């Protein structure tokens, strides 16, 4: 039984089948990008075990095709198993082994990247300093208490926790937060413009003048879901429990934080892009956007910044331009974009522990293929030459 299984899992037939399925998957996943954003397509086709139909996350659905993770995983196992089964050390097969070793590194590196890499953005206006980057796709609910004149005490609740619902408590807060409703994508309207039957989203704050409605998730490449939530502040036991529930609307669309008070203290409440804090900071000195003379064609974008790291006692000027990122403490900052009118630069910040894998793999596979084909080509030419001589 095990023997048969091993036979199947290490067979060349399985390789060809998986590669063919991958071909179809990549093709379909490419065509699907015309109608769905690249992000959605990635999750649905490539970063999944199965491609499900219909595509929504809720309700009845069936797997219709193996997804990228499944195919990649099976190919990886197949590759390793085949080498365990057939490995023999000869010059003839050295190239094949090298090639496949490189492929193993690429596939494994890809899986690692999918699992562990973190992408975020840092928006800097000239003169601005930041020690954090933001993830525009994930929000967090920040509860900011003023415990000190210089330092704020921040309790951040990730979006995923809000989505789960229920009541959330923290030791640092004298109250709990109950999630009444979480909106994956929402539209906020002033009450008077939202129609006659519209109800205020919340009892307090900005939400008392706004109506919130759920809308379908955004699809287009540059559209983002506008996430909102209605929460209730639940005082710890003992406090006036008989009062009507106090609810607040929090949303990425509300700019300014709202102030709540409880137990004689005040907190600021804001839904904002999730932040990744760093032990160092970047200050933008200047952003330049050059175009070719007499045209609108972009020639170069460059962010001149100052990197300050008190821990390592570093304070220096850095230059981030197209194709020349800044690599620092395992993270890489790329020139990603700019705000209209060159008002601010947008840097992409990538943490990817396995970024080196493709570099290594490329060299190994290239050497392997070159050796393999070269070996056979030389042999072929030699045979032909002697054949002609005879």
């Amino acid at each position, binding site marked *: 039984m095990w023997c048969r299984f091993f036979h199947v899992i290490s067979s060349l037939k399985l390789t060809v089948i998986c590669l063919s399925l991958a071909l179809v998957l990549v093709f379909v996943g490419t065509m699907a990008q015309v109608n769905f954003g690249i992000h959605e397509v990635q999750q649905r086709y490539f970063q999944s075990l199965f491609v499900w139909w219909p595509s929504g996350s809720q309700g009845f659905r069936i797997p219709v095709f193996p997804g990228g993770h499944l195919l990649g995983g099976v190919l990886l196992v197949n590759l390793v198993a085949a080498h365990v089964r057939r490995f023999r050390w000869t010059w003839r097969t050295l190239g094949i082994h090298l090639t496949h070793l490189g492929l193993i590194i690429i596939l494994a590196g890809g899986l690692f990247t999918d699992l562990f890499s973190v992408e975020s953005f840092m928006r800097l206006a000239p003169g601005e300093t930041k020690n954090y980057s933001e993830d525009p796709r994930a929000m967090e609910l920040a509860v900011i208490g003023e415990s000190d004149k210089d330092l704020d005490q921040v309790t951040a609740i990730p979006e995923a926790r809000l989505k789960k619902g229920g009541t959330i408590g923290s030791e640092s807060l004298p109250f709990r937060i109950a999630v009444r409703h979480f909106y994956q994508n929402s539209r906020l309207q002033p009450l008077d413009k939202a129609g006659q039957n519209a109800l205020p989203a919340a009892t307090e704050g900005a939400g008392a003048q706004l109506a919130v409605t759920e809308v379908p998730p955004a699809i287009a490449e540059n559209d983002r879901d506008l996430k909102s939530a209605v929460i209730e502040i639940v005082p710890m036991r003992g406090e006036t429990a008989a009062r009507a529930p106090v609810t607040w609307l929090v949303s990425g669309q509300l700019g300014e934080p709202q102030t709540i008070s409880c137990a004689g203290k005040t907190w600021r409440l804001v839904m904002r892009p999730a932040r990744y804090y760093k032990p160092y900071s970047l200050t933008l000195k200047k952003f330049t956007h050059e*175009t070719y003379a007499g045209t609108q064609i972009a020639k170069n974008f460059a962010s001149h910044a100052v990197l300050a790291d008190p821990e390592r006692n570093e304070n220096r000027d850095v230059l981030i331009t197209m194709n020349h990122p800044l690599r620092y403490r395992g993270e890489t900052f790329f020139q990603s974009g700019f705000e209209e009118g060159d008002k601010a630069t947008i840097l992409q910040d990538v943490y990817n522990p396995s970024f080196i894998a493709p570099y290594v793999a*490329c060299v190994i596979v290239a050497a392997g293929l070159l050796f393999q084909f070269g070996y056979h080509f030389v042999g072929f030419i030699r045979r032909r030459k002697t054949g002609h001589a005879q």
Partner: protein
Amino acid sequence: MKRFAPWIALAVAALWIASNSRMPKPAPEGFDLVAFGKLPVLSDGRNKPFDTVARTSLLIIRGKQTLRLDDGRTLDARRWLADVVFNAPAADAYPSFAINNPEVLGLFGWEQNKRKYFSYAELHPFLEKIDTQGGQADAVEQAKRTPYQTAIFNLRNSLMLYQRLKNSLRPDDARDFAGEIDAYMKAMPAALEETAKSGKGGQVNQEKLAGFARLTARFREMAELANVLPVPPDPAGGGPREEWISVGASLLQAISAGTVSPVTKTYALAGDAYHAGNVTEFNRHLHGLSDWMAKNEPEATGRAAYEFLFNQLEPFYQAMGLYVLAFLLVCFSWLGGNRNHGAAAFYVLLLALAVHTFGLGSRMYLQGRPPVTNLYSSAIFIGWATVIVGLIIEKIFRDGIGSACAAAIGFITLIIAHHLAGSGDTLEMLQAVLDTNIWLATHVVTITIGYSAMFLAGTLALIYVVRGVFTRTLTKDSAQSLSRMTYGVICFATLFSFVGTVLGGIWADQSWGRFWGWDPKENGALLIVLWCAIILHARWGGFIRQRGLMVMALFGNVITSFSWFGVNMLGVGLHSYGFMNKAVPWLAGFMISQLALMAIASLPPARWRSFQSGPGPLR
């Protein structure tokens, strides 16, 4: 005699090239438009000769590099441009604008008949309408525009280009431009004095200001419109050397500099002479400009002269002719069974490759870039690489097949390049992210060589199938050698496609922060790699043999054309540097033809004429 056949063929081909390569001479009694064509200017971000401006602009506006007038005369691009920039009223009457879309014609109340070309004067009453309609089309995403929207959008762009061109060297309604400049300079001191007075709250003499202000406004409009920047940085003054400016801008700068640049002044005098039909004066001023440029801008002048030469020689068109000749010679050698014809084809191909290489090398010199920077140059490069590999195969197997493939693919890729050139200057400046010679030289070149090899393998398979099914010439030996070639070329394609794809990933990691993003162009490259891997593993596993290999190599054509062109037509993703949708029917036709060939190749061996007698290749 027959022994000399290859040399005779080569000599004839070389003579043909030489006869095509004569430089144009200015008509002794006419305007020296050759000297005009060689003058360097800055346009679309790079230094180029007027000759290139003329050719690319006419190509954008009219779809051709020459202009046929209603009276049957034909103007070359330089003559057309000289009229546009120096004598706009005459040029306005030329049928310069191509309009093929009946709905666009309907917009003007015109019925579609035999006429395809219209003059600026005819379109003039509808400018506002075209601008509004074109603006509406502009708001629609390129991939989603209807044919009407594309046509009106293009017409609007053509008109804008035309208006910018005719205001580049002088205002389009100017008669005595040099006189205007003199008046401007004369009025300047008094006007500046008045302005200074008004700054101190004094009384301003409006009369003294009015004429000067009118001219300043006129020049400012010119500066805003100008498409061509002909005035090099002042050799005496400071400032960065590379700043070329427009005539209008240089006149505005005269306010602070106190003098007008001699280049601006001479262009004005030359333009007035041209406008008045004074040949001697025009040529005198123009030669003055040429001398000034040669002295003060030697590098730009040298490059412009080289580009002028390159434009005249048209190496890619000449190479096309040679590829056709080589292909015919190979066919003769197969029909007549004469080895000498095969050798002749080989020599002619070598000559074609030399001409092709000259063209490719010239482009690299002019642009200062690796060979592939846009779709146009990728077509040129794919042809070039295939010809080299084809010639190597020919050298090894000596049966005409390598030559035939080289000639056919060389010709077809150059035809494709010719049709891709319609969007204007093929030596355009590169978007910021592409501005890196290392990655252009490694990733782009390797991946393009991978395309070449895939197409070569597909062509070899095509020869196998056509010969096998329709003729009796596919013997066991020739089938075997074809299969060896195809297999070898696929191995080559695997190597280059894989390395090219991974290098692309590394570039993406360097500039976008991720190795792989499932972007359409990346996926296209991955499809080729996957397909190569499938072919190789299927063959090693014994799932396919000769015929299977050929069928799969044919499908390689489909995949490669999808990766090269198809993904650009989707209009999504980060790689949409070379968007084009005119070619959709051509691409679809090509893919269908390949699928049909695959179907033919799948006929049982008994239906293959070559296999009807005697044992054929298995499977």
